[in-house]
């Protein structure tokens, strides 16, 4: 396994929460073996561990929360193809060794080295199956848009992993929209309910657009910027409609926020990725957790050998 990296076995990768244990490359490698990784996956695992153990990602909080979230890892760049990652059919599911084991190795590092076991510091009320490990690659080659990692400041020659704190994916079905305007409204309608229809600005999300949905935008010449701008218009909320007590629901925004208009997501709070099989008019939403300094921010790191 250690032959998969040029880093020395005793190099410290990160302090692993919750116990803040110094973790070496060798310890990560041991867990990668247990997860079923091949040696060439190790650089991705090491970078992912570094990403989730950053202050910005706040793995301790992600672990300890009662919400159903865990690290969602998106791989971009040349390494995805070179290690055989899946960005196509069943991309968010099982059946690909790299996708299945990289995320698993990262979770084992948290559990075995950091001491973050369910029922201990992991207090998730429900959890989700992606906490076994959740890792996939973006389909960059077939996308008309810049990739997630390009959007986050890297170029296509660089391999990166982006760690996002997310729940399980939720399918969005729209099999009839043939215009980008219609599909955008449709996606927005589902995005408005992410986490809860009454949660605005405080939580991020990831939208995984499948190739057939993306074709609506390619055909119309919409780029990512145009898409996000149009989407934003449909993601505004009149706070009076989601205030505590509105529609007989006791949950909602505090009364002091009445009379405002707020966006569903903070600026940059919706991460958009292109992936999935070439047939099927579906996309997927992966809801997030509290964002910003009081929660978790997405973190992208370059993967080095």
């Amino acid at each position, binding site marked *: 396994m250690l032959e998969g990296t040029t880093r020395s076995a005793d190099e410290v990768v990160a302090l692993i929460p919750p116990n803040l244990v110094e973790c070496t490359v060798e310890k990560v490698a041991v867990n990668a073996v247990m997860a079923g990784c091949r040696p060439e996956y190790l650089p991705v695992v090491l970078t992912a561990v570094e990403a989730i153990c950053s202050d910005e990602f*706040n793995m301790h909080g992600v672990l300890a929360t009662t919400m159903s979230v865990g690290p969602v890892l998106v791989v971009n760049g040349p390494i995805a193809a070179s290690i055989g990652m899946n960005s196509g059919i069943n991309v968010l599911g099982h059946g690909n060794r790299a996708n299945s084991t990289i995320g698993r190795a990262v979770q084992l590092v948290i559990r*075995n*080295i950091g001491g973050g076991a369910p029922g201990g510091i992991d207090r998730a009320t429900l959890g989700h199956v992606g906490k076994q490990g959740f890792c996939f690659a973006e389909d960059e080659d077939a996308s008309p848009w810049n990739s997630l990692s390009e959007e986050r400041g890297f170029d296509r020659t660089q391999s990166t992993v982006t760690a996002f704190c997310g729940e399980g994916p939720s399918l969005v079905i729209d099999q009839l929209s043939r215009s980008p305007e219609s599909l955008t409204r449709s996606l927005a309608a589902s995005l408005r309910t992410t986490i809860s229809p009454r949660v605005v600005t405080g939580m991020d999300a990831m939208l995984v657009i499948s190739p057939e949905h993306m074709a609506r935008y390619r055909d119309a010449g919409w780029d990512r910027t145009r898409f996000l701008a149009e989407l934003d218009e449909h993601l505004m909320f009149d706070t009076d409609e989601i205030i505590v007590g509105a529609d007989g629901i006791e949950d909602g925004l505090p009364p002091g926020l009445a009379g405002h208009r707020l966006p569903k997501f903070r600026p940059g709070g919706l991460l958009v990725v292109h992936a999935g099989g070439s047939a099927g008019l579906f996309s997927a939403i992966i809801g997030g957790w509290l964002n910003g300094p009081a929660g978790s921010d997405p973190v992208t790191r370059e993967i080095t050998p």
Partner: protein
Amino acid sequence: MSNHQSTRTTVLDPTAEQRPAKRERTARPESLAGLTVGLLDISKPRGDVFLDRVEERLTALGAKVARYAKPTFTKPAPVDLRHEIAIQCDAVIEALAD
């Protein structure tokens, strides 16, 4: 194969290979009268409602109450805050609420 080669298997430990230090619990006080009890609000909604009531009850028992709050419930209490509570209080109650 006529020669028997001895093989050695090295088993690597996937854990941190650490064990928690065992410490004796602080003896339970017989009375709270005159003692300082720290109430740590982890900053979840309505945690203060719970702690306000606990403070009333503790004060009625003759305890002094010191209130503290974490900056955010999503991260561990800062070391300085934990130290402050440890040196200022005889006991502490932490509230998780929604």
